[in-house]
């Protein structure tokens, strides 16, 4: 923690204006990402993790509006920058890996040309240098026989190779930060494992920062050092991955961890979190998780709960986090050790 953070997100707020009201998709999210670090954003669908990611790259979905907070990337405040400055950052400072490589690759362009585009257009390489760079990148991400594969169209490649192409494109502009939006969700498990290992390898070799968005705790555990758990547009818990997984302090995090199937201990049925995520146009008063919480008490309903700092780099948004701690004490989440 000696280096200045590459990404500084402070009190980020994004709203959607819908007919039935204003949806606070991201409601006061703050986090830092250090250079060369992998940071995880965990949460279920609609928790605001993807919108947060899209805000980082300055490409919010239609209808979404940034209403507050700042995002500083590599010393530049993205939220205050004009369109040109933002575009200048994309590709060469920040790039993005998408969930579904089949739809995120241009179906009528050879993959080699798609990888060479960034070096050609943004880095100002010559056509032949850009092509050579593309083949080099394809080899780097572990595509066998890159010279031949560069001539292929996306539909001619398998899912795993397509995602490798996607990663090569994301790296083609020499970015400092790569945003990964559930990069392995569309792949089967063996390929998923290869891709995660590749991303970790690249992170270390190229010293890039990764921001990983996923609903899959296993993916985050495998790749990230620190994480933030999001619920209903807010960060409810953050800290080092090891620590959060071993000693969760928010009931939602605990629920997520308990819902992961365990091969060692065969249970009758998987634990689940009762209820469903709240309507963000009219979030519950007080703690947003209270209607689904096992440990809910009178004061949880009264006033919005603030993030509480536990130790260095460890925060939780819960008034009664000792309850969760006690529950983990009785029945540890991670049995090994």
């Amino acid at each position, binding site marked *: 923690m000696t280096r200045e953070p590459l990404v500084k997100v402070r009190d980020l707020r994004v709203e959607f204006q819908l007919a039935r009201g204003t949806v606070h998709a991201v409601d006061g999210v703050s986090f830092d990402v250090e250079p060369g670090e992998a940071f995880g954003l965990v949460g279920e669908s609609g928790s605001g993790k993807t919108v947060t990611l899209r805000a980082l790259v300055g490409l919010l979905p239609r209808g979404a509006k940034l209403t507050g907070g700042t995002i500083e990337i590599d010393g530049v405040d993205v939220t205050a920058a004009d369109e040109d400055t933002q575009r200048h950052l994309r590709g060469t400072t*920040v790039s993005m890996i998408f969930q579904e490589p089949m739809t995120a*690759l241009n179906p009528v362009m050879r993959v080699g040309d798609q990888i060479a585009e960034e070096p050609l257009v943004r880095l100002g390489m010559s056509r032949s240098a850009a092509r050579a760079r593309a083949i080099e990148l394809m080899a780097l991400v572990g595509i066998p026989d890159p010279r031949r594969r560069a001539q292929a169209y996306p539909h001619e490649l398998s899912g795993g190779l397509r995602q490798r192409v996607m990663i090569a494109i994301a790296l083609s502009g020499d970015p400092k930060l790569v945003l990964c939006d559930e990069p392995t969700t569309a792949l089967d498990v063996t390929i998923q494992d290869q891709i995660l290992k590749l991303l970790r390898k690249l992170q270390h070799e190229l010293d890039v920062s990764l921001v990983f968005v996923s609903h899959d705790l296993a993916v985050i555990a495998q790749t990230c050092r620190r994480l933030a758990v999001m619920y209903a547009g807010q960060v409810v818990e953050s800290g080092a991955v090891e620590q959060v997984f071993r000693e969760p302090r928010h009931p939602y995090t605990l629920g997520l961890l308990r819902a992961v199937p365990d091969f060692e201990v065969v249970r009758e049925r998987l634990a689940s979190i009762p209820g469903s995520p709240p309507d963000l146009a009219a979030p519950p008063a007080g703690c947003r998780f209270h209607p689904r919480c096992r440990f809910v008490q009178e004061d949880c309903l009264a006033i919005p709960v603030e993030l509480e700092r536990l130790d260095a780099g460890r925060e939780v948004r819960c008034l009664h986090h000792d309850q969760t701690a006690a529950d983990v004490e009785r029945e540890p989440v991670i049995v090994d050790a």
Partner: protein
Amino acid sequence: MSSITADELEPFIEETAVEHRRGFRHRWYRTPSFVAGVVILGIVVLAALAAPLITKYNPTSQDLLSTLQGPSARHWLGTDDLGRDVWSRLVYGARTDLRVAFLAVVLPFIIGTVLGLLAGYYGGLTDTFASFFVNIVVAFPFYVLIIALVFALGSGTRNIYIAITIVGWVSYTRIIRGEVLVAKRRDYVLAAKSGGLSDFRILFRHLLPNVITQAVIFACSDIVLDILAIVTLGYLGLGVQPPTPDWGNMIASGQTYLTTHWQLSTFPGIAVVFTALGLSLLADGLADLLRPE
């Protein structure tokens, strides 16, 4: 469990994927309408190109001593009221009509496509503006507007181009605009944006190749429409000016002798139908072949 790793399996998975989605090169000859269209249009185009080789007479030279003859060994399809060889005029007429029809499609195609791209991609005022003009043109029936324009501009090939361009671009704009509205929501456009590429590059390098197919297919049937328009204008005396051979003129002038010399109007008529059939089949086949997987 097994000693085969996923890495080793990938090439096999890939081969089957490719097998399933064979490209244009491997499928065109298995699409009957495409083959039929190419053959028919090929015959017409070849005849037009080889016109001097397959005709014995100049299409405009008159022979007033042998007018209105029936088909014979000397004049395969007979002669017209000025003694001109009908076969020669038919073949040279293909040159005129194909060229005019093709050129009359190019300009509307380019203008319509660019406007459709801009309107679909940017939306807002650009779209409102483009759609406004599209609606104005669409409000008029095609032939009424074409004939009115040619009438105002004066007859002749150049004015046919202008009239057809003024009317024709709207179809391309509507097609491309609709396609772009769908395509711009795709992830690959977002991916291109997240790479910091310019709008110009996203429009022409990424979106255009994905949306152009429909416009190309439409262009094939549009040529048919244009050939008919040119022939109609020729028939009305507003089109290609005599003595340049043109199927519309031939049909119109042969009409006088329809009861006695039916071949004068019939053969150019058959040529129009034949060419239109070829283009329609080609458009149909292309639509089948280029349909995205």
